[in-house]
Every structure is written in structure tokens, then in C-alpha cells.
């Protein structure tokens, strides 16, 4: 059962990766990265149980946290960037 769930998550990760590669806008990529990060957390939780070592859930927690910081950092970057280049159109 864990395996089935993990497979679904992996396939979704592949889909998210495709979106991250395709773009087209920068926000699509951020969205895909965020999605990918969440899926990683889920995958880790499930695999921790699949392998019978639930004490490794710390890692999943750490991933969740890092993912959030990463997304906020990206957003801050985009915001600063649009502020500085307010004339130029960003997102192509």
C-alpha cells in the first residue's frame, strides 16, 4: 500500500518536474518547485514507513521547512527584481 502511494507521489513529482522544465512563466516554475517540495516531504514520510524506520521522519520535517524558506526566498527575489526593473516586463 505504501508502495502504491509512493508510486503515485513519484509520478506526480515527474509531472511537476515537467511543468518546472516547461515554464513558461517564472511563476509556473516556482509553483512546480513548491509542488515538488511538498511531494518530497510526502514521499519521505511514506518511504520511512516502507523501510520500517519511522525515526527518520525528522528529515521530512526538515525538508518541509527548507522548502518553505526556498519558496519565500524565490518570491523575495522576484519581488525585488520587479521592483528594480519596474519598467521591464518580467515573466517571459
Amino acid at each position, binding site marked *: *500500500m*505504501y508502495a*502504491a*502511494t509512493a*508510486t*503515485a*507521489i513519484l*509520478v*506526480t*513529482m*515527474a*509531472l*511537476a518536474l*515537467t*511543468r518546472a522544465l*516547461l*515554464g*513558461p*512563466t517564472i*511563476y*509556473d516554475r*516556482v*509553483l*512546480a518547485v*513548491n*509542488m515538488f517540495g*511538498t*511531494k518530497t*516531504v*510526502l514521499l519521505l*514520510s*511514506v518511504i520511512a*514507513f516502507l523501510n520500517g524506520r*519511522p*525515526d527518520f*521522519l*525528522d528529515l*521530512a*520535517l526538515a525538508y*518541509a*521547512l527548507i*522548502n*518553505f524558506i526556498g*519558496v*519565500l526566498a524565490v*518570491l523575495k527575489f*522576484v*519581488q525585488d527584481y*520587479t521592483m528594480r526593473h519596474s519598467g521591464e*516586463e*518580467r*515573466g*517571459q
Partner: protein
Amino acid sequence: MTAGLALDIGSWVLMLAGSFFVFVGGVGALRMPDFYTRMHAASLTDTLGTILILSGVILQAGLTLAAIKLAAIMVFLLLTCPTAAYALANAARLSGLSPRPEQTPGKD
């Protein structure tokens, strides 16, 4: 044993449902026509799928430290996922990305 079996079935149903939503979200993020619809598909199912899958795993874990950790992860994701989605949509809107699909810029 029946209680254990019920628990198992419950957790399987939860996990299966979660997997389904997660997958649907992935398809949505890939197939939808523009950024905002993709975002809609992705963020909603993300949250729901996460809750379902993690609840399923919690049922399997029983009353252990692992369950508490899982609950912590769930709360964390529940807080951060919508926040990130909001901030993302907000940033996109502020930067002038239009919600109307026919005006989305072309490919990279």
C-alpha cells in the same frame, strides 16, 4: 483483530484517496492552460492530498512518537502550503501577469 483490520482499511482508503488527489493535482498542474488555473489545480489538491496521505500513515503508526512527528509535519504543511500559494499568486498578480489565458505570454 477486527479493530486492527478496520484501522488498516481506513488508512488504506485514506492513502489511496490521497494518492488520487495528489495525482490529479499533478495532472492539473501540467494540463491546465494558464498559470492561475494551474495554480488552482495544484495548491488545492496539494493540501488535501497531504492531509489524506499523512492521516493514513498516522493511522498505521498508531500512538507513537512517529505519529506526533507526522502530525507536526501535517500542521506545518497545512500552514505553509496555502501561505506559499497565496504569496505566489500575489507576486504573480502584482507583477502584472494577467489571469486571462489568452494574454499569457508565450513560451520561454
